[in-house]
Each structure stands twice: as structure tokens, then as C-alpha cells.
């Protein structure tokens, strides 16, 4: 009997997991389907699910109308650049918090996280004015710096939790072996924390890739990433659902592929080092 209960339990849990998974996946699936409909089919009620005339025309039109690769390049530079710059700053910061903590280390970590509680719109005007005065509006450099600052607290927090898992004695051994602080980080800490650093990189690239508030407000044409590319299809002249969907699919495709191939690392990243 015990065995029967377990099987039933497993069936219920599996069904529940698939349901939740499907619900979470549905918006992407729907966007995918809509991107292959004509504008008329896209808004028809009741909506067509699978049986409609599949068409590539939205993709063709989106490509003709705007330069996808320029937006995509901007996204890559801003997302990857900001996270790499963030790692450069966060690795030493997390090192000192994990291996040379002081009385106030926990407070500093909390304070860093508290910056994420501030509504971004609250600092939009001052930041916009600074960008204007420094000539950073609509530049990749400016956005790399802003995105780095936005994600820095998360990068430091994630690295801190990974570094905490590394026994301090191993770093002490490297010091006894003649390693300077820089060499200790490059040759011992970084390779040991490589899985953690990789998942931090991945998760934050995704966060930076999809960030829309700052990228939309601080760019116009030259440095605009894919978020701006999508937004350009929702205009005062009306919503073009099918084209908007096609643009969205093209915008998320690279990150979707990246995420698919790095699922294992990502799960580690999302659990913040709780899984060994």
C-alpha cells in the first residue's frame, strides 16, 4: 500500500509541476505563436491557437523596417560589458566581506541591498541631468556604467554567498605559499569559485539584457538595445501585436538559447549557492 501512495503522490506532484511550468512558459509560447500570425489573426476573438495561416511576414517586415543587429550588438555590449565590469569590482568586494569581515560587514551587505529597494524613477531626473552634462546620454559607455551599478548589489551578494563556502584555510595556505593578494584571487579563489562566478555572470547578463527602464530612458538611437527595439513597435499610432511579438521573439532569442545551454549553472545561481 505504501508503494501505491508514493506513486499517486508522484503523479500528483509531477502534474502540478507541469501545470506550473506550462503557466510560466505560456506567455513566451503565446508570443511565439502570435509572431507567426497576420495582424488580423492576432487580434481575432476567439483567438486562434495552432490552426491559422503560419507566416514569416512579421519577421521579414521587422527586419526591413529596423536594423536588428545594431540593437542586438548594443544589448550584448551593455549586458555583458556591465556584468564583466561589475565582476571586476565585486570580486574584491566579496573577498573582503567573506574572508576579512568586520563588525559592520552584515550592515554593509544590507545597505547595498537596500539600494535595490529604491524605486529607480526616484533617481531618474538627477541621473538624466548628470548624463546630459557629462555627454553620456545615448552612449554605450553610459549604459554599461548604469547597468553595472544597478546589478552590483546582486553580483556582490551572490559572490559573497559562494565565497563563504570556500574554506579560509586554503586561502591562508596560498598566502603562506607566497601568493600576493592579487595572485591569491586569480590562482586560488577565482578557479575554486568558478561555478559560482559563472552563474553570477549568467543571471546578471539576463537581468541586464531585459532591463528596460534605464535603457529606454537614457538612449535614443545610437546606443539603444533590444528593449528599445521592442518598444518601437508599440507606438501612439497603434499596437501591432504580431510585429511586436516577432520583435520580442528576436530580442529574447539569444538569451533564451544562452539560458537553455546553461540551465545547470542558472539553477545554482538562482538558489544563491544553497545547492552544493
Amino acid at each position, binding site marked *: 500500500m505504501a508503494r501505491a501512495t508514493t506513486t499517486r503522490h508522484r503523479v500528483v506532484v509531477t502534474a502540478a509541476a507541469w501545470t506550473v511550468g506550462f503557466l510560466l512558459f505560456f506567455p513566451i509560447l503565446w508570443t511565439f505563436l502570435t509572431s507567426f500570425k497576420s495582424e488580423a489573426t492576432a487580434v481575432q476573438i476567439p483567438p486562434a491557437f495552432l490552426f491559422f495561416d503560419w507566416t514569416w511576414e512579421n519577421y521579414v517586415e521587422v527586419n526591413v523596417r529596423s536594423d536588428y543587429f545594431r540593437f542586438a550588438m548594443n544589448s550584448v555590449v551593455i549586458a555583458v560589458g556591465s556584468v564583466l565590469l561589475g565582476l571586476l569590482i565585486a570580486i574584491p568586494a566579496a573577498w573582503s566581506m567573506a574572508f576579512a569581515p568586520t563588525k559592520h560587514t552584515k550592515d554593509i551587505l544590507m545597505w547595498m541591498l537596500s539600494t535595490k529597494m529604491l524605486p529607480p524613477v526616484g533617481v531618474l531626473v538627477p541621473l538624466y541631468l548628470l548624463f546630459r552634462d557629462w555627454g553620456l546620454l545615448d552612449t554605450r559607455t553610459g549604459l554599461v556604467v548604469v547597468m553595472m551599478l544597478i546589478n552590483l548589489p546582486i553580483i556582490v551578494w551572490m559572490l559573497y554567498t559562494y565565497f563563504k563556502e570556500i*574554506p579560509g*584555510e*586554503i586561502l*591562508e*595556505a*596560498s*598566502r*603562506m*605559499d*607566497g*601568493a*600576493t593578494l592579487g*595572485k591569491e584571487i586569480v*590562482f*586560488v579563489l577565482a*578557479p*575554486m569559485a*568558478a561555478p559560482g562566478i559563472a552563474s553570477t555572470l549568467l543571471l546578471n547578463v539576463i537581468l541586464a539584457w531585459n532591463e528596460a527602464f534605464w535603457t529606454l530612458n537614457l538612449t535614443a538611437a545610437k546606443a539603444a538595445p533590444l528593449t528599445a527595439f521592442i518598444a518601437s513597435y508599440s507606438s501612439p499610432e497603434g499596437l501591432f501585436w504580431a510585429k511586436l511579438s516577432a520583435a520580442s521573439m528576436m530580442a529574447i532569442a539569444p538569451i533564451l538559447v544562452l539560458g537553455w545551454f546553461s540551465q545547470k549553472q542558472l539553477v545554482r545561481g538562482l538558489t544563491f549557492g544553497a545547492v552544493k
Partner: protein
Amino acid sequence: MGSITLEKVAKKFGDVDVIHGVDLEVKEGEFVVFVGPSGCGKSTLLRLIAGLEDISGGTLRIDGKDATGLPPAKRGLAMVFQSYALYPHMSVYKNIAFPLKMAGMDKAAIDAKVRAAAKVLNLTDYLDRRPGQLSGGQRQRVAIGRAIVREPAAFLFDEPLSNLDAALRVNMRLEISELHNTLKTTMIYVTHDQVEAMTMADKIVVLSAGRIEQVGSPLELYNHPRNLFVAGFIGSPKMNLIEGPLAAAKDAKTIGVRPEHIHLSRTEGDWTGTVRVAEHLGSDTFLHVQVEGAGQITARAPGEFTVRHGDAVRLTPDPAHLYRFDADGNAIQ
């Protein structure tokens, strides 16, 4: 190369004094063991010498030069940790080569030294393995290999054998002693195990609550403990410490007599007692005897000495090996 001098070295963690102004001289080539109960500050003292903790007061000299504020990398000392602290992402070869790489040595010289060290430590067949694929004893050897390749001024050992099982521990103890005989480099070894201290040391430093209780050769400490703490700590089984009328009869607050310095007889002797437990080890028999006016006393008898629980025995302490201590716990000469 390899003398270490401590002058009034002190360590505070916040407001807590952990090491109270320790003076110590470690001569070149000596094997010095820091021993004491857990929490006595022996590991902290070693870490102060290593540079892994900052010295709060006093001066540390290595080969006569002030090293108080030097970072660990600049002190020229090598350390073997209790947890081995090997680099898990590197092969055995790379682990041993790491200090040489940090010193900027060229590849051919590194290779020669690593292979020589591996040969001495029986690690030649394991050079390509990761530490995770080795047994405890092999990991310990890698940790020692990593320490010896760089030819340090001194080796620091922080309880290196406590993670090994009993049989392996005895083997490694001998190997470390042999290594010291071959290299003749200064070694400082921390342990809470007084047997390790007695068997390996040229000089033992007994520590308690952040202070040095006594410094001396193993036999000096065994034969002439300066106070009650050292008397009770050195020797196995422990020295019997007796207070009350039996001590007063010898003009002392406390008297001490080691189990091996008690003569046992069934018929005659100074003290009368009842056997509680007899532990037969083959070579020896240890008797735990309840003695009137003294409490439980441990005595060593020959292996064939057959007594049972409840038997009456008489004990006579050897007057030549009777220690007397005053009210402050100091030995009366």
C-alpha cells in the same frame, strides 16, 4: 637560517587577551612543540608567527630580523594545516609546484624540485591526481611536499595529524620526525596530544590560557614539572595529584606521583586502597584504586599482576619521584 624569537608577543581579539606577552626563543634546527589543552592559544601563537593573524603587541624576529609586520608571504615560512588546505582544483603536481610558481622560478627548476619531493614522499604515482582522489595520509604528504619544496626558514605544523586514524598517525609521526632529521630545518609543531609532543620534540612549550607554563626538553618536563598544570598535563596516564592529610604529611598543599612510580603490594605499603578497575593492556596493567584520604589513584603494575575489582592493595609512592606543590601550585624544590 631558521631562528625565531618572540619578545613579549601579545594578541587581543577585540577586548579579549588571547596571548599574554609571550617570550620564546626557537633555535635554528630545533623541533619545538606547542602543547596545551584546546583554547590555550597554541594555534593562535603559531598563526602569529606565520603572519596569518596580526600581532597586537611585542616583537617577532625571524633570523634576527624584525618580522612583526611582514605579510605571511614575505616571512619565508611554510605551514601544514590541520585540514591540509590543498588546492582542490589543482593536481598534486600543481599543488606542490604552487609556492615555486609564486616565487617566479622557471619551469625546469620547478619540475626537478617537484619530482624530487614527490619521490621522497612516495607521491610519484599520484602527481596527476586531484586532492579529492587521495586518501588522508596521501593528502597529508602532499601538504608536506608543498611545504618542503620551497626550502623555508622554518616549518609550521598546525595539528597536522588530528584528522588521521590512530595507526596512520603513528606512521606520519615517524615520517615527520625522520623528515626533521634529514632536513634539519626548524619546525614548530602544534598539538593537543602530549604523546606527540613527548615523542617528537627537542623542546616542548606547555601553554595554558595564553601563557607559557614551562619550556623544556620532554624529559625535563617529565622529571621536573614547574607547577601543577605541567605536572598534570605531561605524562600518560596522568600524574596522581593528592591533597589533604596525605599531602600535609609531606609538608605540601598537593603531592604528585606518577602511576609508574607507585609500588604495589598485597601485604605491605604506605597507603591502603580498594581496586575499582583493572585495565590489562598485556605489557602493563593499570589499576584504578580507591585510596582512603586520597580518592582515586592510578597505578601501573606489570602485565601479569592479577587483581580483581574489590581486592585490597597497598601502595607505596617512590620517594625519589614524589613531587610536592605549594598552595599556589608551584613545585617545591
